[in-house]
């Protein structure tokens, strides 16, 4: 249960962004990692991996409560495993998305999680399904979700178009910066997963390799360190 305790605001959040590269027939999922906030302690910056594998060709972007989204993805992975064995072939993305939707919807009163499923199968090619908080299932050309996604709606409206190749979609990584910087619950690193007929590629971009956005300052040591340090050595600078 990762909920912020200020008036119901969702602290746990991270932005998932998923979109399709058109002609090249692949799906690219990318995500800024979340700050996991727990009841017990202070904010711990983490580089958690929120792009979860459901099967070899279907991945899930998690947002919302980490525990909830983890349990959903674990159950779906379990069901999909059995399904694949029975069918004798990899299951389709549609089936994976439907299972996620059924689990979320039937346990609506207990779960708080927004999910994006993306993948590639050899019957229908690339597909993206969004399952937001209300638990509708939507097949979409691209999807964004999580707390940081609010800063990206305008950006995507402008820049995303149907049928981009993977090279064109490379611009996406810096595009996550607005939410990296502004949204308190997003930030730190960017992870991407590219899925196509040839397989899956994972990439990781630590925050300091991404270009600074707008008026963001260079990171520097805090001047407070010198004031509050107990050791007398530091006073001599």
């Amino acid at each position: 249960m990762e909920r912020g305790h200020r008036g119901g605001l969702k602290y746990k959040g991270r932005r998932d962004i998923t979109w399709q590269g058109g002609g090249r027939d692949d799906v690219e999922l990318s995500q800024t990692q979340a700050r996991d906030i727990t009841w017990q302690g202070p904010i711990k910056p983490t580089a958690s991996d929120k792009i979860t594998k459901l099967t070899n060709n279907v991945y899930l972007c998690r947002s919302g409560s980490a525990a909830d989204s983890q349990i959903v993805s674990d159950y779906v992975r379990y069901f999909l495993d059995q399904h694949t064995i029975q069918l004798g072939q990899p299951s389709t993305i549609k089936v994976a998305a439907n299972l996620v939707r059924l689990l979320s919807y039937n346990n609506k009163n207990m779960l708080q999680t927004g999910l994006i499923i993306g993948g590639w199968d050899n019957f229908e090619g690339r597909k993206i399904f969004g399952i937001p908080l209300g638990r509708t299932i939507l097949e979409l050309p691209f999807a964004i979700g999580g707390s940081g996604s609010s800063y990206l709606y305008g950006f995507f409206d402008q820049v995303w178009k149907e049928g981009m190749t993977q090279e064109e979609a490379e611009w996406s990584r810096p595009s996550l910066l607005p939410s990296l910087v502004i949204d308190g619950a997003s930030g730190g690193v960017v992870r991407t997963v590219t899925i196509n007929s040839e397989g899956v590629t994972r990439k990781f971009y630590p925050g300091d390799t991404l270009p600074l956005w707008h008026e963001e300052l260079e990171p520097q040591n805090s001047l407070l360190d010198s004031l509050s340090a107990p050791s007398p050595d530091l006073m001599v600078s």
Partner: protein
Amino acid sequence: MSSIGTGYDLSVTTFSPDGRVFQIEYAAKAVDNSGTVVGIKCKDGIVLGVEKLIASKMMLQGSNRRIHAVHRHSGMAVAGLAADGRQIVARAKSEATNYESVYGEPIPVKELAERVASYVHLCTLYWWLRPFGCGIILGGYDRDGPELYVVEPSGVSYRYFGAAIGKGRQAAKTEIEKLKLSELTCRQGVIEVAKIIYGVHDEAKDKAFELEMSWVCDESNRLHQKVPDDLLEEAKATAKAALEEMDAD
């Protein structure tokens, strides 16, 4: 051909000393006594045909259906005890809708055949249930293409290019083997199946019969439906003509 399993055939939960379960074999005999059912897999779909023996002249034409739709994309033709067949069809329908509501896609025919076979097999495991006295030819068209399965009362299911069960199955199988199924379209397949069924019908032993046919193919948009009336009439006419030609020799 058959041995009397005196003493070992009283219950479906008893094996004979030579490893047979006689009750299941007797159930298969019930299938062998019924009208012929034929199914073929053409290059663009499946055709099912039934020689429906008419018990009484008073029966309305088209009643007592032997071919049932299981789902949009699949149907099954039943040979043997009709009431048993209805039970299996009901189960198959419920399996198909249940699969779709959980997985969000139409049930693959392979999966459906496995589930039907498991259900039929279930009834051969308990002494308080009797085996189903019917054989099923199940045909469907899913994203892997058209598929044809036969489920026997013992609960085995096999996949076929062409299959026949019932009275005239030996003769029907011989005829099916002569066909070049990979080159036939379903339109042609309908005519061929009609010819086969008219050919194996024994005029001497059984008086009247009605031909019931269905298909699921590209032409029917991959939906399981009754063969259109005009095509059915054409098939019947061709079959009758072929029969007369044979008699004339």
